[in-house]
């Protein structure tokens, strides 16, 4: 784990447009998230109570150590972390359902009172649906990713994507409804 100053420098550099810094940062974030998430996931059964947002927050604090970073950079971090978080959770879910041979059903009927974070099968389904959505509208998928996996508020997503809060709200509402249908079974929308 590099000292916190390096992460800060990377973030600054990335903000200035240094793509290589962004890559390195993504690796760091991913590694750290994986470490923490792994620990948590092992302790959870079916990921029912796992909160991606809490994890991302925790990684933020750990990576930053005792130094805070200016707000804009924090958002960028969260954007990175959201992607990493999604990958980690889904990969983990896939591994686990692969080990439960045969009992895994890809399409689980949607329940109204299902709490979000989702159990393995639904997480995988969400991931796939999100991929399909991204092919149709990148920004809509990104909004969902940032909100659900990154835990950003509407205003923060707006800032991160450089659009208005109203746009984010509309995107979110639409995307959410679309995904809801998709997860009942692909091709039903």
């Amino acid at each position, binding site marked *: 784990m590099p000292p916190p*100053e390096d992460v*800060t420098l990377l973030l600054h550099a990335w903000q200035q447009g240094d793509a290589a810094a962004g890559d390195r940062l993504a690796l760091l974030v991913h590694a750290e998230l994986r470490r*923490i998430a792994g620990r948590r996931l092992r302790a959870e059964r079916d990921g029912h109570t796992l*909160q991606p*947002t*809490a*994890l991302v*927050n*925790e990684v*933020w*604090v*750990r990576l*930053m*150590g*005792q*130094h*805070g*970073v*200016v*707000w*804009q950079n*924090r958002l960028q971090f969260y954007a990175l972390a959201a992607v990493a978080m999604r990958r980690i959770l889904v990969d983990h879910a896939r591994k686990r359902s692969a080990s439960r041979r045969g009992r895994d059903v890809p399409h689980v009927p*949607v329940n*109204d*009172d*299902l*709490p*979000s974070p989702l159990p393995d099968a639904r997480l995988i389904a*969400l991931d796939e649906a999100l991929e399909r959505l991204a*092919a*149709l*509208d990148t920004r*809509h998928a990104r909004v*969902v990713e940032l*909100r*659900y996996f990154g*835990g950003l*508020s509407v*205003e923060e997503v707006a800032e991160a994507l450089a659009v208005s809060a109203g746009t984010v709200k*509309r*995107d979110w*509402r*639409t995307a*959410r*409804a*679309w*995904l*809801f*249908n998709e997860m009942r079974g692909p091709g*039903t*929308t």
Partner: protein
Amino acid sequence: MTDRLGYERLSAAFAEWAELDPGGREAFRQRVHDTSPALADAFDRLIAADSEAGDFLEPPADGSGSFEPGERIGAYRLVAPVGDGGMGAVYLAARDDAQFDQRVAVKLIHAGLGGAASVRFREERQILASLSHPYIAHLIDGGETAAGQPYLVMEYVAGEAITRYCDRHELDTGARLRLCLKVCDAVRFAHAHLVVHCDIKPSNILVTAEGTPKLLDFGIARLVHAAAGVSPARTSLMLTPDYASPEQVRNLPLTTSADLYSLAVVVCELVTGGRPRAASHDGQDLVESPRDIARRHGRRLGADLDTVLLKALRKIPSDRYASVEQFAGDLGRYLDRRPILARGDARLYRARKFAARYWAGVAATLVAVTGLGIGAALSQRQATIAEAQRAAAERRFNDVRALANAVVFEFDRSLQSVPGSTAARRLVLDRGLQYLERLASDAAEPPLLRELARGYQRVAEVQGDPFFRNLGDVDGAARSYQRAEDLWLQLVRLEAGRDEDREGYATAITGQADLLWGKGDFDAAFQRYERALSVRTELHAKAPSDPARAYAASRAAYTSGQALTKLGRFGEARERYRASLAIAEAEDSKRKEFPTRAATAAMKLGDCARREGDLDGAIRQYERGKAMTEALLDETPGSEVFERLQAFMVGRLSLAQAERGELSEAYRNARLALNQHERLAKADSADRQSRVDVATARSDFGMVAFLAGDVATARDMVAVSVSEFESLVRTGSVTVDLRSDFGVALRRDGDLLRRAGRPAEAVARYEAAVARLAQTPRDFEYEAELAVAQARLGEMGGPQAATWLRQSFDTWRQAESRGVKAGRMQPGGSEAVARLISARATARR
């Protein structure tokens, strides 16, 4: 829907539909069906999904799902959500029991959690809860939800951001500034309590309908760090860049100066209409001056106000006002149409030439080093002196007074309980001393002499008091004490024994005595202690209701007791401790020195009891001391002085428990004590005493571990403590206590090595132990330990064995004659050794 264009049309239609009222929606839906049949089906399904989705994918508040109105958190019932702060959701709530009709704001904190983090969170919360000021939103309570999510309960403030309030009420510049002065007072108050806000911005400064400003989220950033288990050292997690100081943006350590900067940005915004931007290149502080910003917004800004703001917004913290108080002072002067002080600033900083300029150097150092604004008083004096026409003597008198008081007295006191400040103190000390020496050469009048004597005394205290946080310069301290003592004697002779001169004298010789004791000259130290004690007792008797005199008498008795202990006069020592405890406990005043003294005296009485084998008595005294210390910690949580004391108490307790055979308790406590000492030592690595404490605690823990059967830990701990002692001995002055504790650690290491089947190394250790414990002057408090070490050498055999055993026997006899009883920790009373000797004698025949 499988193509981008299709989705785009679908979502556009859906978005439009969502904006309409029910009647309009139906019509719209109809239109879609009529004009775009290809879309219609998907559109309907989307609408259906929208209403069925419920809270699908909705991100809940971390930890346990979002809270609903009516739910309880702690003792509070949530009424309604009132916003989403950067750190978590905020709810309006009320106390659940019908007793209070108090509205509060409950704030949940996003954070990862851990066990130690909760402790830190609670400690920090207590510090913030103690901030009680009319313009600060009070932190009432806090805790963790059932799911482990931290939350805070704060005074609910119904108000609007200060910027909006001022605009809505169309306040003129004067009114805005007056409002800001109130805010400044709140910030000043918090700084005086060493709390930095870190995130001052208009949305954190609400103004109620009555026009009262309230500062929110003071130090909340620290709490967030605490909740996440990170040491809340410096910056906040989530800053608004617009109000952040340059050092915050660059992640440099923050001082109260960062708050000053943010505050100045807010003031600037209120009076000019815009916010200043820091210049990205060096050489310039801001992109444009406040005056230019005002012009841009069609307003006018007074020249003086421009100057004041510019000074507060300088890029380098030490260029700004030294404190919020100073800043507010100039704002006030501006309002009263008086000349501001900032104007003279440029001259002062550039010219460092004439006599009064010594002040500039000292003040600047202080500001840069502490950021606490103590230098403010000095800069202010500087300005006043430069303007006033005073006689040279009078001016110098004031100089000394200000130096002694501000630099050495208040400054040092305020830093005493902040961990990590040894280097800062050393710096200021050097400057102070230089200045005193310059003045001492031609001082003659009693008032000046007195101030000088006090100045030297204070400097000496910081230079080398071996009992408190010291900087390791014992010889310098001795010189300073001697100077002080000479000055006091001179005064006593000059002014025929004024009380304050006698007190000064007593203080100076006590300081000298402390140093002598540290060097091991117990007899000389004891004589001075007794002299000081008689002066103190006399003074206390003359004015029994004066708490300062009472404390001094209590301390004098205590230190005499310590000296007597080292001299082996245990009975007399106990009398002194009793006296000390009695005086301290009799005192009613709120000052913390009394319970502290009482606690340490109780601890010493416990040691006396333990030495005599009265374990019940010992534990009783230790528990007493521990309870007193914990009460002190409750009142000032985070105080390193009390945490140290607590660690000592717990450590002592573990020794007595080990003696009694309560080994698992002893083990636990010894570990706790060691952990605490380690933590304190980490907070200030330049401090020698903490490291000594760690080594001693580690050696004790090793011993207890051994008795408890955890030999592996025992070996590690004792071995490490030996190397810690070695390092300490190599790198600084060796007090008698240090030498003795080192000797004990060596003996214990020898025991463990012997057990591990390494007799040659064990012998070497024992020899080293004896060498230290038998050194002159002899430390009779450790006489029993010496006897044990000698016995061990005897047990190891070899040609000298008989001699060692005999020596051990004699040493034990002497110790026992002083009332010492053998026990687990110091095994081998004289009969035991006698048996051993005769057994050996028998074997050889």
